[in-house]
């Protein structure tokens, strides 16, 4: 069967320290406001009635998100130049020599993964640190996390180990691009349609 690398994120443990984000910026020298890995802070809550009292029920959790190297990547389908392509091992890469900087992939990817480099005029994104993987090392973000939230590996094995969940708020319906992603959910991230929740660090990501 086809190889497919995937990320595992344990959102129940993520403290939102952004070490993964910083390690990624550092390794790939992204600069220019580009974040291949971003940590979304989600918060929400409401006043809940208990007997005669109204009690605040508030919560917050973090989701560290890069490119999910999707099995059915919408970016690969929409890119007019085939600059975005999927390797046999599932890793989705951008060939900057082909990219025309039309930003169409940025419009279409529901994970905000393609990040435009206005200096170079081309799109850039997470490479899964394929160079590290070749050397037998872990991707930079995985090793940087002090809480051991991130893991990477063969998609099948991660699924066997941790289950098949690939969507929690605010991530999109996983049937659209089939992200190579396994999530261990934070207890508050499981659907609470009646309670207000939102990404609270929008300006940062």
């Amino acid at each position: 069967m086809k190889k497919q690398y995937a990320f595992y994120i344990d959102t129940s443990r993520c403290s939102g320290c952004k070490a993964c984000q910083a390690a990624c910026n550092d390794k790939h020298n992204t600069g220019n406001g580009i974040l291949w890995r971003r940590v979304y802070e989600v918060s929400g809550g409401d006043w809940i009635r208990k007997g005669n009292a109204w009690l605040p029920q508030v919560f917050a959790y973090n989701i560290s998100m890069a490119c999910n190297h999707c099995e059915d990547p919408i970016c690969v389908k929409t890119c007019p130049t085939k600059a975005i392509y999927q390797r046999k091992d599932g890793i989705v890469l951008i060939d900057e020599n082909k990219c025309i900087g039309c930003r169409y992939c940025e419009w279409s990817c529901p994970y905000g993964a393609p990040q435009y480099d206005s200096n170079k005029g081309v799109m850039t994104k997470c490479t899964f640190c394929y160079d590290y993987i070749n050397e037998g090392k872990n991707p930079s973000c995985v090793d940087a996390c002090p809480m051991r939230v991130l893991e990477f590996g063969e998609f099948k094995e991660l699924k066997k180990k941790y289950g098949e969940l690939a969507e929690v708020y605010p991530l999109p319906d996983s049937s659209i691009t089939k992200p190579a992603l396994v999530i261990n959910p934070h207890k508050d991230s499981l659907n609470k349609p009646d309670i207000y929740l939102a990404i609270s660090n929008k300006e940062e990501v």
Partner: protein
Amino acid sequence: MHFAECPLILFTIMVQMAVGAFLFLGVIHHLSLVRLNDEIFTVISKPILNVTGFILVLAVIVAGFHLGNPINAFNALNNLGTSWLSREILSLILFLLSGGFFLLIYIRHKLNRKLIFSLALITVALGYIAIASMAMVYMLETVPVWNNLFTPLAFVFTSLILGSGAILHALNIIINKKKYSLLLNEFSIQKLTDPFKIISLFILGLLFFQVIIMFSQLIYLGSGDETLRSSFGILIEKNILLIILRLLLLLSAFLWLISLLVKYNRTRDLLLKRKYYALYFGILLLEELIGRYLFYAMYFRIGV
């Protein structure tokens, strides 16, 4: 909306207007053909075709400004298999080629009329295929606010409203030019005014439906799921004044045209009043520019 979308606003509007103008020039030609001298029509439509071609070339140049890396532009046809953006560019190229070929043949107007007519038909068809592909580019599964019938409707209406408006305006200018007025006797001007009237009535219908579409779209967004309501929120909170302005412009274009038609019934001399049509076209152009700005402004993608 990003500032980066400005070239796209201009590009889409210019291409759609040019396709519509080509269509309506053909319609007027056809309607007046029966009685109007073929050669006279060729003389007056040549400058219009040249301007249309110029606008298209300009549109392509403007589109280049949208690209971060236009040097690689030749790669844009690489993904015809799955990318509507590649397909849009291909259909646009075909439309341009066919239009250019048509122009070449048309200038030597001694040539076979059947051939010219079929070429014109092919060009119009290719133009609307290009507009359809353009709509498909925006109909992304991850962008529900664009992924519905309102996108192709908006593009086709732009093409019909601006295309017809541009042609009325252009013919009006030409008829008022000395060079041409010597050529056009009273009789042929009369023949040209008939299609003017038919087309104006048609546009009145279009403007009416444009208003209906605007309201239906707002209702559709406002009563939709969370993502659609987010787009609705962006429109109402940040752009309500533009929406109102757009409605007012549509309304004034509508009333303006009616008043022209009423007066025109009394005297066909109205056709010779040049600034009337210029103003009318200006109003429509502004209305469509605002409409397209709002189209990009309401962008809201699912996910993060």
